[in-house]
């Protein structure tokens, strides 16, 4: 039974990879495998490589002084935070909000089997996010120390244990959010707020950890001694990666105990949580005179209502709104000294700081990606807009508007803060404001293009299209490449141009790409939407 449910989960998760919506046919095995490999290369290749480089820098110095356990302990902490943050925004939805809960619970299937199948989805996310840290960590260690059976087994167990801890903690948090949601009226806002608090906490810990790494390596032996005596478990857990058997057995036992406890909590409450709707009282209807709205306002309000109704949608696709404001405040607060330092390193005349600010702000802004899942999120309600007397292009424009509404003002705020900190010349001011705003438009158009090309209307859990699709990954990669390329190309090839001419070229290229995407959306994109 569990196998059947897991197969259903996998089918849903990988539907886009094995089914071609354009031709309404299954993809060939080679094509499906190609799509999955593409996904893995994008994900593992990009994030995995970053952590591989990080592990390479850490492993040698620590192993040389006999502190392999510390290397694994540090890598596991990073993996835990990345893994939890990667899955936490979707765990609540994955575990409890699937549309087929009632159907499955009405069948002769034990609830614990349903929980296990739901947890399998979380497990995949946990493995994916923690794996990009743990797998490179183990590989780097094996390259540095040489391959032995004990180290290989230890490495594999290390990867699995970190994944299991991420799974358990994510599920526990998902359970906590679910319990709170049952008691709340404005579920989506509160859930979002709770998750954001967790997210902020994560960033505080993560940045402290990153700062701490430097001092760890500088005074490695004293620090290691401190950790081993104060946090015994961290040392034991780190030794798992080294393949030390007592550590492996002890850690497996402890993690198994944690998983069992979480499992007990989940199965005890699953049916109640999954079948209980909000505990809030019935909303009272009062007749009022509605305001007449234009079509654009109407369609825009529809998109915004959808966005604010779902914590998963807000957290996964609207985080930049907050991040940009925080970044702006940070620039006002600490921007001056950082800019002075960068100017000292690169030379004030280079103009690199301006380019870095433009690239950096664009990098933060791209994380708003409501356009990517917006078409798929129409789901089975697509018939409504298709049967109404509205132009398809207007529907698509409303999707673009949502992303721009969420991003443009925070971007502008962040740019103004950056400008106050940097004090640029008038032409530089204009470009500092214009390029990130143009990038906003480009990202929104690119996301919508992806959303139209890879549609999945038959999801049973919206988190699948919001977070777990290939389109989201490709979008993320595009945003990262854009932001990084703006800085890298200037440093490598365009130093001589100066920042103003260079950013003018960037603005031109951004406009050109946007124009091409817009042309595609208003012709082929519209046709695609109408053929869904």
């Amino acid at each position, binding site marked *: 039974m569990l196998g059947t449910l897991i197969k259903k989960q996998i089918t849903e998760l990988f539907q886009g990879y094995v089914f071609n919506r354009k031709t*309404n046919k299954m993809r060939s095995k080679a094509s499906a495998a190609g799509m999955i490999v593409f996904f893995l290369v994008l994900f593992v290749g990009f994030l995995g490589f970053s952590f591989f480089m990080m592990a390479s820098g850490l492993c040698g110095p620590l192993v040389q002084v006999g502190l392999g356990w510390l290397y694994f302990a540090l890598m596991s902490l990073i993996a835990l935070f990345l893994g939890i943050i990667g899955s936490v925004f979707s765990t609540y939805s994955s575990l409890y909000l699937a549309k087929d809960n009632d159907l499955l619970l009405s069948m002769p299937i034990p609830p614990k089997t349903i929980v296990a199948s739901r947890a399998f989805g979380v497990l995949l996310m946990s493995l994916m996010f923690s794996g990009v840290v743990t797998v490179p960590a183990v590989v780097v260690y094996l390259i540095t120390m040489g391959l032995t059976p004990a180290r290989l087994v230890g490495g594999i167990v290390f990867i699995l244990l970190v994944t299991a801890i991420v799974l358990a903690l994510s599920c526990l948090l998902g359970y906590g959010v679910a319990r709170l949601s049952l008691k709340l009226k404005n579920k989506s806002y509160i859930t979002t707020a709770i998750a954001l608090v967790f997210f902020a906490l994560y960033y505080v810990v993560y940045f402290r950890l990153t700062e701490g790494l430097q001092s760890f390596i500088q005074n490695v032996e004293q620090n290691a001694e401190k950790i081993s005596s104060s946090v015994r478990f961290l040392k034991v857990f780190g030794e798992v990666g080294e393949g030390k058997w007592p550590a492996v057995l002890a850690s497996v036992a402890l993690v198994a105990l944690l998983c069992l406890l979480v499992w007990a909590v989940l199965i005890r409450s699953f049916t109640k949580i999954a079948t209980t*709707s*909000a505990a809030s009282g*019935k*909303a*009272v*209807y*009062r*007749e*009022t*005179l*509605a*305001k*007449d*709205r234009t*079509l654009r*306002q*109407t369609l825009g*309000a*529809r998109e915004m*209502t*959808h966005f604010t*109704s*779902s914590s998963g949608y807000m957290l996964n696709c609207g985080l930049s709104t907050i991040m940009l404001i925080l970044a702006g405040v940070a620039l006002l607060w600490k921007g001056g000294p950082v800019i002075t330092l960068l100017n000292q390193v690169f030379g004030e005349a280079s103009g690199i700081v301006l380019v870095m600010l433009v690239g950096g702000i664009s990098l933060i802004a791209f994380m708003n990606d409501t356009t990517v899942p917006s078409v798929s999120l129409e*789901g*089975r*309600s697509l*018939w*409504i807009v*298709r*049967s*109404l*007397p*509205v*132009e398809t292009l207007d529907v698509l424009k409303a999707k673009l508007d949502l992303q721009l509404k969420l991003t443009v003002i925070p971007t502008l705020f962040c740019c103004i803060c950056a400008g106050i900190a940097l004090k640029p010349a008038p032409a530089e001011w204009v470009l500092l404001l214009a390029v990130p705003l143009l990038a906003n438009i480009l990202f929104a158009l690119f996301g919508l293009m992806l959303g139209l090309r890879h549609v999945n209307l038959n999801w049973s859990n919206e988190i699948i299209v919001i977070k777990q699709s290939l389109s989201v990954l490709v979008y993320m990669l595009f945003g990262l490449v854009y932001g990084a390329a703006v800085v890298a190309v200037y440093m490598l090839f365009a130093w001589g141009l100066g920042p103003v001419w260079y950013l003018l070229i960037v603005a031109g290229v951004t406009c050109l790409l946007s124009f091409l995407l817009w042309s595609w959306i208003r012709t082929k994109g519209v046709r695609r939407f*109408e*053929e869904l």
Partner: protein
Amino acid sequence: MLRIEHLTKKYGSKVAVNDLSLHIAPGEIYGFIGHNGAGKTTTLKSAVGIQNFDAGEIYIDGISIKEDPLEAKRRLAYIPDNPDLYTYMSGIKYLNFIGDVYKVPAAVRKERIHDLAERFKLTADLAQPISAYSHGMKQKLALISAFLHEPKLILMDEPFVGLDPTASHLLKQMMRELCDQGGAIFFSTHVLEVAEKLCDKVAIIKDGRLIRSGTMEEVKGDDSLEEVFLELEDK
């Protein structure tokens, strides 16, 4: 009011609707019956402009759904077999959304929502999120939204499924009222007794082909509609 001429729709190599022609005049309630997968929903979706078709023409009040879909859609309302509405909206928000799209003035809209919600006994639930609605409540909301802009033509796919007897009776009454005012109804159903009592005309579709159509008397003669249908199905 609705003229379907030589409609043909294929899904890959499968012909879902094959050269189907129908004419529904103002004032008519037209029933559309056929076995599962016969092509009823495909025909309805094509007529509403949700689905492109391979050949033929469809006119709503003389306007081609292919050539001028917006103008055609302004004259009609559609209710699918499963009313998947926006679960992230409340009932009233959804009705206001529909009202905005069809440009129903606020004061008129308020009055109509009041009247329709009272008739369908949904007033008390209008502030609730649609996600909390039962199937029947969603169907009622879909019906209210369909009548809200006073369309000339309503196309419905299995409209009675999920409705309680009172709402079912009310819907039949409202269908008749709309037709008495010069509108038209085209709906599919598997409940042949309802079709027999309610419809002025009926069409039977089998494997994508129209096998019989006309006034109720022409189609069934002295037999019941069920007998005629089963006999045609067996052929």
